[in-house]
C-alpha cells in the first residue's frame, strides 16, 4: 500500500511537470494559423485547424460571405447548397460530388460539430467548381484569391537627393508600418496585394538599395531596405505610398492613410482608415478619364514592322502623343506603358478597371493594310455569370454598346480627315476584360512604306483625330470627377 501511495505521488509529480511543460510549450507556440480570403464580395480571414497533418478550414465559413449557402448533415453525407446547386461530401472520404460530377479531394472531408471541414489544398480544385470562377490559392502563405481581385503594385525611385521610393497600388491599401534600423516593413493583412514580377526589387540607390516582397500566414509583407532613417507617407487616397527620409523631429512611424473612397474588393470587414494623416499634404485621388495603353512592350515586340522598327516602339510614341492631345483638350489621361516594360494583359485590364476610367484606348501599329482600324471587343463564347461573379473573359459585355459608340465617333473623325478607316470587332485582349468603354486603334501606313508610322506629322494626325473624337464623346462616355 505504501508502495502504491509512493507510486501515486510520483505519478502526480510527473503529471504536474507535464502540465507545466505543456503550458510552457503553449505559451511559446506560434500564432494561430489563418486563411485570408479575398473576393469581390468581401475580404475576410478564417482560422485553420490541423487534422491528419494538414491545414483544414470550414467550407461553409469560406462560402458564407460569397453568396447564399446552406448545409445539412445526412448520416455520413454532408450536403452543401450554394444558390441552386447542391453538392455532396462523404465524411472521412476524399471523393465528393460537385455540380453533378465526381471530384477527388487531396484530403479527407471531415465533419466536426456539424461543421464540414476541407483541407486548404482542396480549395483550389473545389471552389472553381462551386463558384464557377477562377480561384488562386497561395497555400504556403494561407491566401486565397477568388476572381481577379489581386492588388498589383509598382515601385520606382523618384529624386536623387534625397531619394524617394514611390509605391503605386491598383487599389487603396492600408498596411501596418513598422520601422527598425535599416528596414521599413509594410504588412498587408487585409489587402489582396500580390508579388511583383520579381520578389526582390533593386533601385540602384545607396540610400534605398532594395525592397523585397514576401507572404506568410495570410499576410503580404513589403520590406524596404535603407541606409537612412525613412518613413512612409500615404497619398492618392491610399493608392500611393512614398518612402522618404525622415525629417528631423518627425516620428519614424508613418502616418496612416486617409481614404474617402472604399477600395474595390474590400468589404465592411476591412479596417476603417483613420482620419487625415500627418506629414506631407495628401493629394486628392485623381481618376483618369482616359487610359491609353501602348500595346506590347518588353519581351513582346508585337509586329516587326520593318528591319529596324518594332510595333512596341511605335505604340509608345503614339501613346505619348495621344496623352498630349487629350490633355490639351482637358481630358485627364494615364498612359499605362510609358517605357519598354513588360506588362501582362491581365495587369493592363486590372489597372484600367481599377481606375474606372471612362474609356480605355489600346494602340497597335501594323504594316499590313492602309489607314486606321478601330476595334471593339469580339466577346468569346461564355456561360452565364454565376452569383455575384462576372466572367473575366466577357467583362466588357455590359459596356460593349458604349465602346461601339466611341469607336464610331473615332471612325467618323478619321473620315472627316480623309484617313481610310474601318470599325470592326476583334478577338483582341484585354478589350473583353474591360468593364468600361474600350477600343483599340490599329494604325497602318497610308501607303506601302511602314516608316510613315514613325513620321511625327502622321502620328500627330492620328492622335489628334482620336483625341478630338474622345473630346466630342466626352459627355456620352461620362464626365470625369
Amino acid at each position, binding site marked *: 500500500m505504501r508502495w502504491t501511495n509512493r507510486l501515486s505521488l510520483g505519478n502526480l509529480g510527473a503529471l504536474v511537470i507535464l502540465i507545466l511543460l505543456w503550458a510552457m510549450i503553449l505559451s511559446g507556440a506560434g500564432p494561430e494559423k489563418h486563411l485570408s480570403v479575398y473576393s469581390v464580395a468581401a475580404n475576410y480571414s478564417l482560422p485553420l485547424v490541423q487534422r491528419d497533418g494538414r491545414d483544414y478550414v470550414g467550407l461553409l465559413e469560406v462560402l458564407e460571405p460569397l453568396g447564399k449557402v446552406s448545409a445539412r448533415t445526412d448520416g455520413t453525407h454532408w450536403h452543401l447548397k450554394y444558390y441552386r446547386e447542391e453538392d455532396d461530401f462523404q465524411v472521412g472520404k476524399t471523393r465528393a460530388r460537385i455540380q453533378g460530377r465526381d471530384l477527388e479531394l487531396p484530403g479527407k472531408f471531415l465533419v466536426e460539430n456539424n461543421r464540414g471541414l476541407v483541407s486548404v489544398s482542396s480549395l483550389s480544385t473545389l471552389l472553381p467548381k462551386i463558384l464557377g470562377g477562377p480561384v488562386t490559392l497561395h497555400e504556403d502563405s494561407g491566401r486565397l484569391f477568388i476572381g481577379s481581385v489581386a492588388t498589383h503594385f509598382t515601385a520606382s525611385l523618384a529624386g536623387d537627393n534625397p531619394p524617394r521610393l514611390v509605391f503605386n497600388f491598383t487599389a487603396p491599401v492600408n498596411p501596418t508600418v513598422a520601422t527598425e534600423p535599416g528596414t521599413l516593413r509594410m504588412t498587408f493583412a487585409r489587402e489582396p496585394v500580390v508579388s511583383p514580377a520579381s520578389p526582390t526589387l533593386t533601385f540602384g540607390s545607396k540610400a534605398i538599395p532594395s525592397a523585397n516582397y514576401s507572404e506568410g500566414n495570410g499576410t503580404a509583407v513589403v520590406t524596404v531596405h535603407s541606409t537612412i532613417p525613412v518613413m512612409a507617407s500615404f497619398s492618392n487616397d491610399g493608392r500611393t505610398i512614398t518612402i522618404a527620409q525622415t525629417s528631423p523631429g518627425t516620428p519614424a512611424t508613418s502616418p496612416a492613410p486617409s481614404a474617402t473612397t472604399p477600395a474595390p474588393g474590400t468589404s465592411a470587414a476591412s479596417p476603417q482608415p483613420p482620419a487625415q494623416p500627418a506629414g506631407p499634404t495628401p493629394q486628392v485621388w485623381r481618376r483618369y478619364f482616359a487610359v491609353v495603353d501602348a500595346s*506590347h512592350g518588353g519581351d*513582346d515586340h*508585337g*509586329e*516587326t514592322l520593318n528591319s529596324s522598327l518594332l*510595333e512596341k516602339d511605335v505604340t509608345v510614341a503614339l501613346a505619348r502623343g495621344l496623352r498630349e492631345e487629350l490633355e490639351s483638350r482637358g481630358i485627364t489621361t494615364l498612359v499605362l506603358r510609358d517605357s519598354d516594360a513588360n506588362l501582362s494583359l491581365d495587369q493592363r485590364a486590372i489597372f484600367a478597371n481599377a481606375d474606372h476610367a471612362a474609356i480605355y484606348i489600346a494602340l*497597335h501599329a*501594323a*504594316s*499590313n*493594310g492602309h489607314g486606321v*482600324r478601330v*476595334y471593339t471587343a*469580339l*466577346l*468569346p*463564347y*461564355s456561360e452565364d455569370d454565376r452569383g455575384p461573379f462576372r466572367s473575366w*473573359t466577357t467583362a466588357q459585355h455590359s459596356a460593349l454598346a458604349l465602346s461601339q459608340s466611341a469607336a464610331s465617333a473615332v471612325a467618323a473623325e478619321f473620315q472627316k480627315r480623309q484617313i481610310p478607316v*474601318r*470599325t*470592326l*470587332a*476583334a*478577338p*483582341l*485582349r484585354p478589350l*473583353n476584360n474591360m468593364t468600361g468603354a474600350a477600343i*483599340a486603334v*490599329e494604325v497602318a501606313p497610308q501607303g506601302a512604306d511602314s516608316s510613315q508610322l514613325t513620321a511625327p506629322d502622321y502620328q500627330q494626325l492620328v492622335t489628334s483625330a482620336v483625341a478630338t473624337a474622345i473630346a466630342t464623346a466626352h459627355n456620352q462616355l461620362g464626365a470625369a470627377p
Partner: protein
Amino acid sequence: MIPRHLLIALAVLLVAVLGMSIYAWNMRKTVAATPAASVDTRPLAPPVAGPTEMVALFVANDEDGSLRPRAAQIPMPSGRQQRAEELLRALLSIYLDKASPHVLGAGAEVRSVFLVDPGVAVIDVNAAFADTHRSGVLVEELTVASLIHTVSANTPGILRVKILVDGKERDTLAGHADISDFYDVTAVNQLATQLAP
C-alpha cells in the same frame, strides 16, 4: 593442286566484286552530286476519288482586309468531321499558293478538326501555322474568321469553336488574335458580315 574450274569461279567472283564496288562508288558520287529535292510541305490534296460537292470557302484578302465567299467543287467524304477537315484543307491550299490573297507560311497545316456534341468544333492547326503567321490585329483576325466561318457555314449546328496549336492551347495566334477561349459562332458570323467586301 586446286582444280582449274575452282580457280576460274574464284576469278569470276573477284571480277564481280570489283565491278560492283566500282558501280556502288559511282552511285554514291552521283547521289551526293544531285541536289536534294525540296520537301513539299503543303497539306495533301483532297482525295480525287469520291463524289464532289459545291461548297463555299470564305477566303481572306489582305489587299482590302475582306473575307470573300468563293465557291469550290471539292471531293467530300460522308463523315461530318472528315468533311470539316477537307473544307479547311481546301481553304489552306488556297492560302499556301504563291498567288494567294492572304499568304500563310510554308508548312501551315490543319492537323484535324474535332466535332464535339453539342455544337463544339475544335480546329487543331500545326505549330508552323501559328509560328509563321504574320503578326497584326487584322491579318490574324482574317485567318481566324476565315477558318471558323468556313467550317460553320458548311457544317450546321456548330455554336462555338476552339483553335488549338499542335493540340495545345495558346494565348494568341501570332501576338494579337486571342485563341485562348472558345469563339462564339454567332459573333464570328457578324464579324464575317463586317469583313464582307
